């Protein structure tokens, strides 16, 4: 957590949306009830929590709510297409002597729940297949043994065990699920009393199709989504369905404002990227007040019914509020305070778009993108391609059966597969490079020099593009180190960020090197090859603890550099001071990085240096 590392401890979060508050547990159970009521309508739920009592209790509650006989399937993150979409059942096919199909998990989960374990490791391709099933409620897998269209109306539960902020399930999936619940910090009591019972869900299910959402409420939901900076058009639609489910649960034919507030809280809040501009006159006062008046004290009694414990709008102004404002407030109340503060400060939260596209460990030969088939018997760790193997065996069957019949004297019916028939699927293990730019945006004229080097940087980016490499951007200035751009292929974003980077402040070099080392380590574990390009003048003047103490800062940056070097990642230091300086050179030495003073670094040389550093 680079950002967290840089932020100091004074933001011990607290607020309504405090991740440890019991409100979170209540939300989690309410979401479970709504999901059990309308699994395919809600799309599903992402539950961020490690394995543990909280997750177990939640799952137990949810399983109690779904009717007996409802299919529930658990899907591992590395599931193969054969199992996910369906295909040929090898054992049965060989036994029967004709192709026997095996149903895919998507089809099996129809009408029930599909639970993705370790969803933060799901790859983009699997996510895309799940997305299609969620969107259409049916898939036609187009695979031998699974060619027919099958219904796939299920609720998807993503068990997200990610720890780091960017370790998350694919955004394309999260976007399609109504709920996102974070229990990772919850340590409170795990009571489920007072929450909907199975019978109530059952009764509500009957009412669901009749429940409606009025036009005003609909407008308010869409308006609230817009005000909170929720771009996807799916969010308001999901919120609408959740409001309808909430109405059905309480036996109302039309969703009330409370139902919509609940939907805003559960569906829109986790997607919020900004806060609406408050009305002019109260704009200074109101948000501040609310924070101070609602301290993070031990939460309300858990017996309360969750929909009714909607964020109480400050009573003095409630008469003047439009429905939309009420919903925005409801959503706002569900946000953790630190997030609120960042939004309030006008920081547009980046969409976690590229989050969660984790590579897999490079050694495995059984995962990745299939790129073709080759003959050969499967050795351990390789995957037999059943369909292709049978295809190769097929034309020989009459002949082989005759042979076998002559040998054994009995009529053979089995499929005769011989060694020559074996076909193995080949997988492409993308060993991608990720170039991490660590850019000194401090006041020591650094950024002016960087602007001069813009051509070089752009060439580097263009190079990355043609190799389809990823880039990441870490910037540092003042007391903070910021992962401005998590690893992504969107170079346009990198360039935009770089161009718009303000300069100024001190140089927390040690913290920046720590952050770079941490990111590099993470990338390497994810199966990528990191390459660090550090652009600085090497004049550290902010120590790790944020103190302006140049000698200590320099000391620390050197020791940080040495521990970075111990990791053995490729690095390049571009000295952006007007004249090559000793401290930058010394730093490069400690980093075991190539040293390149900018005045001599034209685009070509810079590029060559990076290539040299990454060995490509």
């Amino acid at each position, binding site marked *: 957590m680079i950002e967290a590392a840089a932020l100091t401890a004074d933001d011990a979060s607290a607020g309504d949306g405090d991740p440890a508050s019991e409100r979170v547990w209540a939300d989690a159970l309410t979401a479970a009830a709504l999901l059990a009521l309308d699994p395919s309508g809600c799309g599903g739920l992402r539950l961020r929590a490690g394995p543990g009592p909280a997750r177990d209790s939640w799952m137990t509650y949810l399983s109690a709510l779904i009717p007996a006989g409802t299919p529930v399937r658990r899907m591992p993150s590395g599931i193969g297409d054969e199992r996910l979409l369906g295909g040929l059942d090898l054992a049965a096919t060989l036994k029967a002597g004709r192709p026997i199909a095996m149903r895919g998990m998507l089809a099996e989960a129809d009408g029930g729940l599909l639970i993705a374990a370790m969803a933060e490791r799901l790859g983009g*391709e699997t996510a895309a297949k799940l997305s299609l099933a969620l969107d259409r409620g049916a898939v036609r897998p187009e695979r031998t043994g699974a060619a027919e269209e099958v219904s796939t109306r299920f609720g998807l539960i993503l068990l997200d065990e990610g720890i780091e902020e960017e370790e998350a399930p694919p955004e394309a999936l999260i976007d399609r699920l109504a709920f996102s619940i974070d229990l990772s910090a919850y340590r409170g009591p795990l009571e489920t009393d007072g929450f909907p019972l199975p019978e109530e869900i059952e009764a509500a299910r009957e009412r669901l199709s009749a429940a409606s959402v009025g036009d005003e409420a609909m407008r308010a939901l869409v308006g609230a989504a817009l005000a909170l900076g929720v771009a996807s058009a799916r969010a308001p639609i999901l919120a609408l369905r959740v409001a309808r489910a909430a109405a059905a649960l309480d036996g109302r034919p039309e969703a009330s404002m409370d139902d919509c507030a609940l939907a805003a809280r559960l569906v829109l809040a986790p997607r919020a990227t900004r806060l609406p501009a408050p009305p002019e006159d109260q704009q200074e006062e109101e948000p501040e007040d609310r924070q101070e008046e609602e301290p993070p004290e031990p939460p309300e009694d858990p017996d309360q019914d969750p929909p009714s414990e909607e964020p109480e709008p400050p009573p003095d102004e409630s008469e003047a509020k439009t429905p939309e404002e009420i919903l925005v407030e409801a959503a706002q109340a569900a946000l953790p305070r630190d997030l609120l503060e960042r939004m309030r400060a006008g920081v547009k939260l980046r969409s976690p778009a590229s989050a969660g596209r984790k590579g897999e460990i490079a050694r495995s030969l059984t995962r990745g993108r299939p790129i073709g088939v080759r003959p050969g018997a499967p050795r351990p760790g390789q995957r037999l391609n059943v369909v*292709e193997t049978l295809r190769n065996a097929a034309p020989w069957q009459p002949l082989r059966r005759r042979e076998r019949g002559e040998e054994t004297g009995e009529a053979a019916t089995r499929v005769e597969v011989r060694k020559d028939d074996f076909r193995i699927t080949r997988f492409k293990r993308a060993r991608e490079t990720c170039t991490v730019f660590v850019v000194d945006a401090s006041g020591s004229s650094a950024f002016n020099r960087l602007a001069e080097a813009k051509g070089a940087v752009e060439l580097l980016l263009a190079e990355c593009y043609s190799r389809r490499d990823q880039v990441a951007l870490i910037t540092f200035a003042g007391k903070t180190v910021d992962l401005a751009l998590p690893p992504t292929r969107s170079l346009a974003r990198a360039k935009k960020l770089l161009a718009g980077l303000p300069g100024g402040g001190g140089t927390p070099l040690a913290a920046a090197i720590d952050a770079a080392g941490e990111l590099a380590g993470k990338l390497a574990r994810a199966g990528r090859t990191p390459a660090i390009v550090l652009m600085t003048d090497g004049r550290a003047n902010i120590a790790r603890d944020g103190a302006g103490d140049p000698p200590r800062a320099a000391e620390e940056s050197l020791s940080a550099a040495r521990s970075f070097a111990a990791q053995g990642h490729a690095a390049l230091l571009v000295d952006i001071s007007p004249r090559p300086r000793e401290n930058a050179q010394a730093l490069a030495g400690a980093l075991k990085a190539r040293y390149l003073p900018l005045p001599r670094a034209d685009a070509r040389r810079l590029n060559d240096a990076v290539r040299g550093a990454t060995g490509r």
Partner: protein
Amino acid sequence: MSAPFPFSAIVGQDEMKRALLIAAVDPHVGGVLAFGDRGTGKSTTVRALAALLPQIKVVEGCPYNCDPERPSPLCPHCEGDGTTPEGAKKASKGRRISAPVIDLPLGATEDRVVGALDLERALTRGEKAFEPGLLARANRGFLYIDEVNLLEDHLVDLLLDVAASGENLVEREGLSVRHPARFVLIGSGNPEEGELRPQLLDRFGLSVEVTTPNDLETRVEVVRRRDAYERDPSAFHERWAKEEAKIRRRIERARRLIGEVEAPEAAYRRASEICMALDTDGLRGELTLIRAARASAALDGKKTIEDESLRAVAPMALRHRLRRDPLDEAGSAVRVERGLGEVFAA
């Protein structure tokens, strides 16, 4: 699965809708690529198109959807090249089907796409027979790939190749089959998931950028219609049936008209001027521009290509053919606009 969301009920997204209609009027325009944000209705729109396409007449029993009046000379079924001796006779009979819009899902195996040895028959009867794949089913229709940027590169290559040549050549497992595979390739995707290889980009005829509408009214309307559709699909369809029929007639009329749409000398000059101003690679830009403008004019009921039609289709025909600055992604639309401004001001 219920009937897809009606095309006419899709709010906004005019450029994407026009591009798809152009492809429906003139399949030779060379495919449509729709890139854009999540949840903007890209795939909804493509699937909605299926309901609008005029029906086609096909040879009874032909797995390649041959036209009974003009069966493809490549078709092993209808031309009777030896594999099915009775094929030629069948060519006289025909039946009407809705034009195929075939979904190519990620995870589809190559054998299902191109066709392969019929496993069932091979295993049970020891016969060597060809089982046609998706490309056969898509003949004379559309082939749709959602998340095209995630499809394996070798499959994308293969598809573009087949789409360009109009025939699928299968050489595997001792089979050697050639069959017609003329379809309009439609791809959609979200650029944040990964970009499409630049080599593939300009092989799509048209390219549109899809964005989320930002004003409240439009978004409310999107949600309102979606809600109405989900609550009662058949009533919703009934409500939009008239609009749907209107668009269908428009496509049919444009198809009849397109042969008569003239391209005056001025239009060719204009197209070249535009492409030169934008510095596009190769001549494919000009050709696509003219083709798309002709289809667009036909859709509008016009008989000559005027500046207006060229201007309307230039962004979708050219934005992916600009000399590519990989860092300047959002800029391509702006650059096209700028170039157009220059040309039309002169």
